[in-house]
């Protein structure tokens, strides 16, 4: 029977087949973690390959631009490399890594600058359907900007629940909150998101 502490959340496994998120079986992941304790960089590279997409996307949700998301994602993996000898497997590796990522993102935002405004993706093009795509892209941009301006805990909860599809318990563990608080934060985050997007659209 495999250790529940190293079990991968299903949606992460599903995302793993896409570029930047290669698959690792549970046994392979466990072996890689063990090898990392012995400072085998090649083993850590396999973990980076497995989780880089998830971590990058999580960071992007927080900071809303590629440059900062890239810096943060790399910083997350550096912190994970330094801390992995102390990883005891009490939570799943992905939960542990997400906790590092969320802390890095919250510290980053506290230290650096307020949420940045994204630049438009490009000039309108004459291709048929482009207008609808632009409208859709514009809405997506407004939603991302609104998420980036939510209060910290609400933003973190929304990102982990909606985009990474973690359970309430996993989010609570990552954020160090009670499950009831996670549920309440999610409700308030959704309400604030709707309000902010509506205000932006006026």
């Amino acid at each position: 029977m495999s250790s529940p502490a190293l079990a991968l959340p299903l949606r992460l496994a599903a995302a793993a087949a896409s570029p930047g998120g290669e698959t690792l079986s549970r046994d392979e992941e466990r072996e890689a973690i063990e090898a990392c304790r012995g400072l085998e960089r090649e083993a850590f590279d396999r973990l980076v390959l497995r989780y880089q997409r998830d971590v990058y996307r999580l960071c992007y949700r927080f900071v809303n631009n590629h440059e900062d998301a890239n810096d943060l994602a790399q910083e997350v993996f550096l912190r994970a490399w330094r801390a992995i000898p102390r990883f005891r497997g009490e939570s799943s590796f992905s939960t542990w890594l997400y906790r590092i990522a969320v802390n890095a993102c919250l510290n980053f935002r506290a230290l650096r600058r307020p949420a940045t405004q994204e630049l438009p993706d490009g000039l309108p093009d004459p291709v048929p359907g482009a207008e609808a795509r632009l409208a859709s892209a514009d809405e997506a941009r407004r939603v991302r900007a609104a998420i980036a301006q939510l209060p910290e805990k609400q933003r973190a909860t929304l990102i982990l629940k909606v985009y990474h599809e973690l359970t309430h318990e996993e989010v609570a563990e990552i954020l160090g909150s009670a499950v009831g608080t996670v549920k309440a934060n999610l409700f308030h985050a959704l309400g604030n998101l709707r309000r902010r997007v509506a205000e932006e659209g006026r």
Partner: protein
Amino acid sequence: MTRHVPDESLPDLAEGGGSEADRAHAGACGPCASRLAEVRAALDLARRADVPEPSPLYWDAMRRSVGRRIGEEPRRRPGWAWLAPLAAAAALVAVVVLTSGRAHAPWATPVPGLPAWSALPDAEDDPSLAVLEGFAAGDDDLAALDEGDGVGPFLASLSDEDYRALAESLRGAGKGGES
């Protein structure tokens, strides 16, 4: 009618979860159904905002960059490395105790020519000094293990007198352990 659905239960209901009682209530209560619809709309809105996908080349570049930065990190010992100097010190003590204690062990052959009143042999005849010197000067593996701040460099820094004093105290410890 049962109580209204609590705020914090609405997202679960909107995603098809939640309790049977809350689901039944939301189906029959206009205000709760309306609140549920708002939460569902907000979830739909959130899901429409996907993260722009970077270039496919990005992932490889990012991984290489992480690897390079890890390579630039100060060299670290594995988790068990702190045991190495300790093990070396324990081995040293064991060797010295066994070597010097042989003369006193009931099964050992007495060292000929050593006067009964002498606590220590002459420096030239003392095998424990050779062991200490071997550790201090010649053992590259030990030096590599403790990376310059463990037993090897410490012994290398001792004067002849200090060597002898250390050997004497180790022998004393050995005798104490035997009694």
